[in-house]
């Protein structure tokens, strides 16, 4: 993938070859500016790659699709709609009864019961993020793309949101592509971690996180995997 800029073309991604299985949780980990968002945008159909192709279920991706929903870094919810209105946003093809059922189900799933008629500005950052996840899940997509969804949250909320995401994932089996530059986040969440190099990014290594959930954050295996990823990113173990 190349971007043309005033300073000439810059190469962002080269020879990315990645296969993701149905229902898998894959974290894409890499330093800031390496092209993680670019990669996710290409897979999601929001950007056309300058070369190569993306196949999902054997079909080439040509644009965004409601079967694959993107959750943004922040401020992705519609501020003029209530919690219910936001969750209902993608459900315009359904009849009223089914829509109401879906809304109720997903508002409850993400723990926003009681806030159905609240507007986003009345919600905390974590609640807004959960609302966005609910809006995405409500259209029953096969794949979720999450681009540093918890990046703007404080560290406690971030931890809570991770376990929430894992809980939601147990309830609704989805394929998840999750971009992060947080090593701990990737070890806590993913089935596999794809480590990217600096720009022009390629895949340095793919690490299987074979630990079952719930994961013990002080277990030797956890620390071992985290150190392995730290090394792959090219960071020393001490600051």
């Amino acid at each position, binding site marked *: 993938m190349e971007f043309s800029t005033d300073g000439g073309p810059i190469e962002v991604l080269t020879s990315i070859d990645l296969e993701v299985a149905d229902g898998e949780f894959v974290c894409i980990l890499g330093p800031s500016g390496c092209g993680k968002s670019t990669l996710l945008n290409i897979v999601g159909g929001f950007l056309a790659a300058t070369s190569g192709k993306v196949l999902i279920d054997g079909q080439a991706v040509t644009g965004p*699709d*409601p079967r*694959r929903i*993107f959750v943004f870094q922040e401020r*992705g919810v519609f501020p003029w709609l209530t919690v219910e209105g936001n969750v209902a946003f993608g459900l315009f093809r359904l009849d009223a009864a089914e829509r109401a059922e879906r809304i109720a189900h997903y508002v409850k799933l993400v723990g926003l019961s009681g806030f159905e008629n609240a507007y986003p500005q009345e919600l905390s950052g974590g609640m807004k993020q959960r609302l966005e996840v609910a809006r995405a899940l409500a259209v029953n997509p096969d794949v979720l793309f999450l681009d540093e969804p918890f990046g703007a949250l404080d560290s406690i909320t971030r931890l809570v949101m991770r376990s929430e995401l894992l809980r939601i994932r147990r309830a609704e089996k989805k394929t998840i592509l999750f971009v992060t530059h947080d090593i701990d986040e990737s070890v806590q969440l993913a089935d596999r971690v794809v480590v990217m190099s600096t720009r022009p990014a390629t895949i340095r290594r793919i690490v299987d996180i074979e630990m079952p959930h719930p994961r013990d954050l002080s277990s030797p295996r956890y620390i071992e995997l985290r150190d392995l990823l730290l090394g792959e990113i090219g960071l020393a173990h001490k600051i």
Partner: protein
Amino acid sequence: MKRLLPFSAVAALIAVWFLAARTQTSGLFPNPLQVLFGLVELLQRGLLAKYVVASLYRVSWGYLLAVVTAIPLGLFLGWYRRGEQALNPLLQLLRPISPLAWIPISILWFGVGDMAAIFLIFLASFLPLAVASMNAVRSVPPTLLRAGRNFGLSNLRILTNVILPASLPQLIVALRISLGVAWLVVVAAEMIAVNSGLGFLIVDARNAGNRYDLVVAGMVMIGLIGLVLDVSIRQLEKMQALRWGYGS
């Protein structure tokens, strides 16, 4: 206490006005009481209601015509870059021309009468509304547009369910500003282009015997109605679904 402050300011103005009128020797500058009598006189002669209605009639038509044409055009231009590239320079060229500069042309086209005034008000509200709607669309956060596309909305639905609500707070500010402009322009237009209305009252009262009490009575009415118009349109900003747009 807070609510009384504006009233005390008005009271102070009236007091100063009384004093100023006393020091005046020409006898032409009216004091507040004389203006009040002037208003009563206008009311009794049936002119006040007639002129207020005439002015509001022109503003309503000119303004509504501008709203229903400028907003769709502005939304369209904000959305299609090509359209904006083609028409924006023209809009920016027309914008600095005061609506009042159009008075001779509007009389030439429409003759002396309501149509000329309506045309001027239309012009005066059209340009700021069109430019503001265009800018409102362009400042819709791209993440929201992307979400709209991601959920498979048609272009029409993106317009009605994303772009329009996202630009509504800015549109309402523009509606409010252009209504104020329309009210300014109707008075000016009526001084020249018609034979009724509050603007006409002011010119007529001066020309027909230096009736400055009626001149100021006209000014007071213009101020009061302008205030009522502004307060009414500001009710729109209080809508629950819009609060996010005004950084409460």
